[in-house]
Every structure is written in structure tokens, then in C-alpha cells.
């Protein structure tokens, strides 16, 4: 009999190889700083971080599915739950909480209370528009796009200028007009909006549609 799908990521986290958290944080900080020095434009850096995250995500999803043995999620709520409890725990060592569902069940917030990427980080005044954790949104976009076959637009808004930087994100997910018959995470395509936050802050609800 196949092993049961995990409800939390703790046993998985105990079995994967780990790396020193400070080394990880400092390495990511060095990447962001180098991107800022090379590209000089905050928007460009955001795009580059998202692209890097996307490339990570398309590879990470296979590892995640192989190691975690989750079954198909029936709806978006379950997907968000699995990402928050199992996915984040397995790769970052922290769990996110899923909150702030909208009425239709298409928007939620993933709140990371304790984001290891932003330890010690304070955004200087020159980089206020920087989405420091944008790599995470790219990872989610890449991972979900491989399974959903839809178009994903995820973006993050980072709070700066406060002692603790946070990450917050909004995403818009729209299925492509013609879906190929490939295995999906859930049977019916749902337009989903994925929002992720870090730092325990809540995002304001966006009004209006995110333009392409």
C-alpha cells in the first residue's frame, strides 16, 4: 500500500539534507546585491529574481512531488494548504499560514512569519520598490505552471523602510484558452489568484485586474 500523503512537512524536513541558515541568507543577500549592482534598476532586478525563481520552480516541482508523495489536490484550497505546510517546510524549514481567503475562494494570502531569506535585511532608501523575496514568487509560478498548464502572473510587493522587511505578493492565475489534455492538479481549471506575504503583514486587496 502506498504511504499516506503527509499532512505536515516535518518528517520530510527531517529527512532532507540541510544547509546552514546563515550561509543561505547571506548567499541570497549577496545575489540580490550583485543584481542591484549589475542592473541598477529596481524593476529589472525584480524581473530577474522572478526569472531565477521560475527556473528553480520548474525543477523543484519534480523533486517536491517525488519526495512528498502528495496525492492530487481537488481544489485550489488544498493546493494552497499543501504549499504552505509541506512545500515551504520542506525547502525553507518554515511553514506559512494560509489566510485571507476571498469570497470566491480564488485569492488567499500565504503569510511567512519567519522568512529565512530576510534575516538581518533592511532595505535602504534607494531600493524602496525592490521585491526582495521575488524569487519565491518565481518559484511558485514555475512550479504551479508545470502542473496547471495555465498562465501564471505572480508578483510580490516587499515592505521596506521598516526594521523588518517583509514580502507580500499578489498573483493572478488565468488558464490558457485551449488547455492541453495533460494531468492537472485539480480537475476543473480555476482562475486562481495566489498571494503570498511574509513578515506577518496583511496585504490590501487589489481592486482591478492585473494587466498583462
Amino acid at each position: 500500500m502506498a504511504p499516506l500523503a503527509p499532512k505536515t512537512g516535518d518528517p520530510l524536513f527531517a529527512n532532507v539534507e540541510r544547509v546552514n541558515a546563515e550561509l543561505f541568507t547571506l548567499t541570497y543577500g549577496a545575489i540580490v546585491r550583485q543584481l542591484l549592482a549589475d542592473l541598477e534598476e529596481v524593476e529589472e532586478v525584480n524581473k530577474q529574481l522572478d526569472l531565477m525563481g521560475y527556473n528553480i520552480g520548474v525543477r523543484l516541482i519534480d523533486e517536491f512531488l517525488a519526495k512528498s508523495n502528495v496525492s492530487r489536490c481537488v481544489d485550489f484550497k488544498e493546493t494552497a494548504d499543501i504549499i504552505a505546510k509541506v512545500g515551504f517546510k520542506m525547502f525553507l524549514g518554515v511553514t506559512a499560514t494560509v489566510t485571507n481567503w476571498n469570497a470566491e475562494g480564488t485569492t488567499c494570502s500565504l503569510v511567512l512569519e519567519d522568512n529565512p531569506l530576510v534575516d538581518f535585511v533592511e532595505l535602504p532608501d534607494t531600493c524602496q520598490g525592490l521585491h526582495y523575496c521575488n524569487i519565491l514568487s518565481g518559484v511558485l509560478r514555475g512550479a504551479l505552471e508545470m502542473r496547471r498548464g495555465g498562465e501564471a502572473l505572480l508578483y510580490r510587493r516587499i515592505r521596506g523602510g521598516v526594521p523588518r522587511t517583509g514580502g507580500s505578493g499578489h498573483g493572478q492565475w488565468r488558464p490558457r484558452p485551449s488547455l492541453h489534455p495533460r494531468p492537472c492538479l485539480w480537475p476543473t481549471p480555476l482562475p486562481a489568484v495566489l498571494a503570498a506575504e511574509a513578515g506577518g503583514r496583511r496585504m490590501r486587496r487589489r481592486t482591478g485586474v492585473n494587466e498583462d
Partner: protein
Amino acid sequence: MIVCVAVVGHENNPLYLQSFTEADDALKLHHIVHSSLDVIDERVNNPKKSGSTLNETFLGLLYPTENYKVYGYLTNTKVKLIMVMTDLDVKDADVRSFFRRFHAAYVDAVSNPFHVPGKTTTSKSFGQRVGSMVKSFGPGATA
């Protein structure tokens, strides 16, 4: 009562300087900090035989001036932490624990990827942490 704290780099360049009283002349405090650097250099270059070899980081009372006492603390990277305080009966252990926490806060501030080593620390949270540490410093305050 602590009136001033300072962090000075290994080439005696100032990295952080903050005074906590309005009454006294900030310039005078800076001058005191500056002259205490000479004392540190002297102590570092001529280690006393009877000096504490166990804890070489804490330099102790550097020198007492008119109404101030100056304490010094040296890290392994030759970064100097200096504290100026008014004359009060303070225990050595309190000062040591203050420097330990100050050192920890400084290390966290330096770990910020946007901090340029060698330049002054512009982090607001570091300033806040130091401010709260200074406020809570007193007889009986332990780490």
C-alpha cells in the same frame, strides 16, 4: 548612565557613533572616544603580563576623565566597541554583558547585505536596539 557608544573599525575609522544625552556637548564626547582609541592601541600593542589572557576581548576601564568612565571592547577583527558612561558604581559583569549584547547587535547589523563594510552603519533597527539596550542598562541588568 551611558552617555555615548561608538563602534570604530580596525583602521580607526568610525562606524557608528551615538550619544544619549542632550545636556553634554556631543563634540566633547566624540573627542573622548577619539582619545580613548590611543589608549586601546597602547593596550593592544603592549599586552600586560598580568592582563587577562582568557578574555582578551574585554579591555575594561580605559581611563577615567573628569566625570566619565570609558570602557573598551575589542573584537577579533580589530573592531573596537567603546562605551562612555557617567560615574556610577557599576559592576564589571554588567559592563561585560552589555558589550556582549552590543557585539551581537553589531554583528546582526553587519550581516545586512546592503551594508557596505567600512562605511558607517545606517541601519535604523541597530540604532533602536542599541537605544533600548542603553536604556535597560543599569545595576542588575544581565544579558
